């Protein structure tokens, strides 16, 4: 078993806001992240799949295929978008677009495509919000 990780970047804006709370409480909990005009980040996404290399090709999966999956399933929806306004799983206050929730949401977008292709399984999604902060999701424990 070998793990293969592919990195991609996307740029998006967001703010943190819980509609069930007062403005004061949102500002108290989320600080600058609660400003309603939002702010942005350059995110780095790391996607890890695991499997055994195919005896003929030597590939676990084709890196180009994995690049396309990341592009089609995640970047097409997230890159140069506003999470709170444009991304379905976060819009209308459904989900606060923290780095934690983005990691879980990216997993949910990627997992069906990886599983459908066979040959490898998704084992890890890591999302860097800045070079100093990342959240990692390995599926339901």
């Amino acid at each position: 078993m070998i793990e293969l990780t592919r990195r991609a970047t996307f740029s998006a804006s967001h703010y943190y806001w819980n509609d069930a709370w007062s403005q004061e409480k949102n500002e108290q909990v989320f600080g600058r992240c609660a400003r309603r005009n939002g702010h942005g980040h350059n995110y780095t996404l790391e996607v890890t799949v695991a499997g055994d290399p195919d005896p003929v090709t030597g590939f676990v999966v084709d890196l180009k295929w994995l690049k396309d999956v990341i592009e089609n399933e995640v970047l097409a929806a997230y890159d140069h978008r506003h999470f709170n306004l444009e991304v379905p799983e976060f819009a209308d206050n459904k989900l606060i677009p923290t780095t934690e929730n983005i990691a879980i949401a990216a997993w949910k977008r990627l997992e069906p495509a990886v599983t459908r292709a066979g040959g490898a399984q998704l084992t890890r999604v890591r999302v860097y919000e800045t070079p100093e902060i990342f959240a990692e999701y390995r599926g339901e424990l």
Partner: protein
Amino acid sequence: MLSASHRLHTDVLSNEENRATYGKCNNPHGHGHNYVIEVLVGGPVDPETGMVVNMATLDEVVQTTVLERFDHTNLNFDPLFVNQVPTTENLTRAVFGVLRTALPAGTLEYVRVEETENNFFQIQGE
């Protein structure tokens, strides 16, 4: 870091199938990468030395078993890759294998090989 060239091609497949499978990695004259090798060792800290593994020993092992063998070479010509394609998956397995043999038993936790800044491959120790 090791700099090496490779070409992804297998005689099991036709030229067309090789081209379809490997794309530009199948170009006949090969191409190269700067591979970054990350080696993690683990274990109890020796009470006499305060070390898990002496870093000088680790450097020496990586230098002699991995870098001297693969750095500035064409991977397709290494005996390991006569019968298997030098994908980074297979290079990672090869590096993991030689390091597990060369390092003190049970200390190798993982080997990671970064082919480019956008992808890497990792094998965990037992």
